[in-house]
């Protein structure tokens, strides 16, 4: 592979001169917004909660959160930044030098914890219709992901097929928070099949919940500090291990898989850990044609929340450990509490070539779009 560390005499390209595709920004969906897009009888339930008090990613009957569990001291950072419409999103992404933003929900990050299957599926359908109608616009550089409801994989597959030819939809969002069965389970095969047929990548995204499934049984922690780490990073590791050990990348060889909001430092760990197990336990996973890290390295990893070692050169080395120059993609997570300004990743001493790949070129390949946000597979 090429040298990823900056060469001493190379003039560093300015952030303003680099194409920035942001693989994870969040729209604010609320019960009231979704009412016109939701079918009966579930619309009645949304009308009933449209005026309830909202906490950060926490509305009863919509997105059960952790507010109820602990002392709520006043704080200067309440996690109340929200983006309410496409114009606001475009304006705010301009301020942080983002050209193209990939849209994820706020509350429905935790849609897997909704216990009523039909309600969850109706919410996903309403969200997808609302997202396409109100937000997705290649001209604005705002591109959506179809929310795949894990409680009803057949319906999720229908949703993916419904939006296959939409210029504004470029991916499929696989929600992970509180997920009952990990994403490697064969019940999700219809989703993978539909996504592969549509040429749309799947993107895993988690968030903090307290829920009795691994790794969200985090009630033992007294802090969000602890829950937050497990809910994102451990969830990604668990899902990827499951997907690889059930052969998802073998059975769907053209399916592109991406991981968001877990940072990148765990990727070398997982790669080596799986390869070590494989030596001894290959016959448990006889469908794998090569060591697990080969499949892991074909997946894409979003930077946010990017690790901030004192020596930023450590990030260059970290990337080299998983051959990450072609499969690492920038994400800000705007407007959430732990968003990364692109300037942080811009400070990392990559070569100009690698920096351009991470900020935009790799994501263009993942989403199969051109630099103007137009899908190349329509």
């Amino acid at each position, binding site marked *: 592979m090429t040298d990823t560390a900056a060469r001493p005499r190379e003039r560093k390209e300015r952030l303003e001169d680099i194409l920035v595709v942001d693989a994870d920004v969040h729209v604010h969906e609320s019960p009231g917004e979704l009412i016109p897009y939701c079918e009966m009888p579930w619309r009645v339930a949304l009308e009933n909660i449209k005026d309830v008090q909202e906490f950060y990613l926490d509305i009863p009957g919509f997105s059960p959160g952790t507010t109820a569990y602990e002392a709520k*001291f*006043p*704080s*200067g*950072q309440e996690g109340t930044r929200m983006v309410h419409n496409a114009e606001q999103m475009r304006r705010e992404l301009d301020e942080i030098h983002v050209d193209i933003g990939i849209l994820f929900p706020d509350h429905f990050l935790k849609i897997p914890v909704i216990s009523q299957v039909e309600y969850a599926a109706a919410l996903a359908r309403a969200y997808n219709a609302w997202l396409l109608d109100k937000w997705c616009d290649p001209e604005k550089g705002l591109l959506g992901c179809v929310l795949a409801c894990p409680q009803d994989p057949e319906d999720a597959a229908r949703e993916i097929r419904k939006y296959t030819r939409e210029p504004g939809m470029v991916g499929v969002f696989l929600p992970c928070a509180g997920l009952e069965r990990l994403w490697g389970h064969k019940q999700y095969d219809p989703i993978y099949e539909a996504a592969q047929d549509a040429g749309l990548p799947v993107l895993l995204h988690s968030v903090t919940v307290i829920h009795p499934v691994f790794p969200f049984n985090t009630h033992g922690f007294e802090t969000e500090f602890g829950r937050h780490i497990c809910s994102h990073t451990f969830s990604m590791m668990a899902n990827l291990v499951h997907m690889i050990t059930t052969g998802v990348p073998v059975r769907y060889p053209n399916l592109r898989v991406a991981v968001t909001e877990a940072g990148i430092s765990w990727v070398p760990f997982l790669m080596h850990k799986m390869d070590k197990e494989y030596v001894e336990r290959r016959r448990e996973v006889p469908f794998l044609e090569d060591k697990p890290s080969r499949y892991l390295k074909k997946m894409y990893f979003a930077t946010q929340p990017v690790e901030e070692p004192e020596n930023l050169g450590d990030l260059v080395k970290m990337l080299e450990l998983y051959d990450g120059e072609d499969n690492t993609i920038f994400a800000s997570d705007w407007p959430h*509490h*732990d*968003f*990364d*300004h692109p*300037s*942080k990743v811009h400070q990392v001493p990559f070569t100009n070539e690698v920096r351009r790949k991470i900020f935009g070129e790799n994501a263009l390949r993942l989403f199969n779009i051109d630099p103007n946000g137009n899908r190349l597979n329509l």
Partner: protein
Amino acid sequence: MARSDKREREAHVVGEATDFPEGSHRVVRVGRRQIGLFNIGGELYGLPNVCPHQTGPLCEGKPPLGTLVSRAENDWRFEWVHEGEVVVCPWHGLEYHVPTGQCLAYPNINLRRYEVVVEDDKVKVLI
């Protein structure tokens, strides 16, 4: 304030004293600098409006609040301290004690403190 001994500081008028009542905080411009001015208990404090973490606008957030500490001499019980003296960067939540400029998370981060004086009802920042 060794720096000030080396050269004469300039007093920059940033407003009337009545613009900065007790309990208020706002960001003023002095040339290219943005400075957060806080009136805490009648004392004026000035801090740079740039968080050393990811350059967030640290003085533009909520009014200073208190915060939690936990110390051995109090058997590690949580204590609510510095009421009205801790500003929180609105980007990522790093806390700073306004009167001292001290970052609560990192002992090695101490913000520059601008001296603020009131003369003839004018508020002036000395730089």
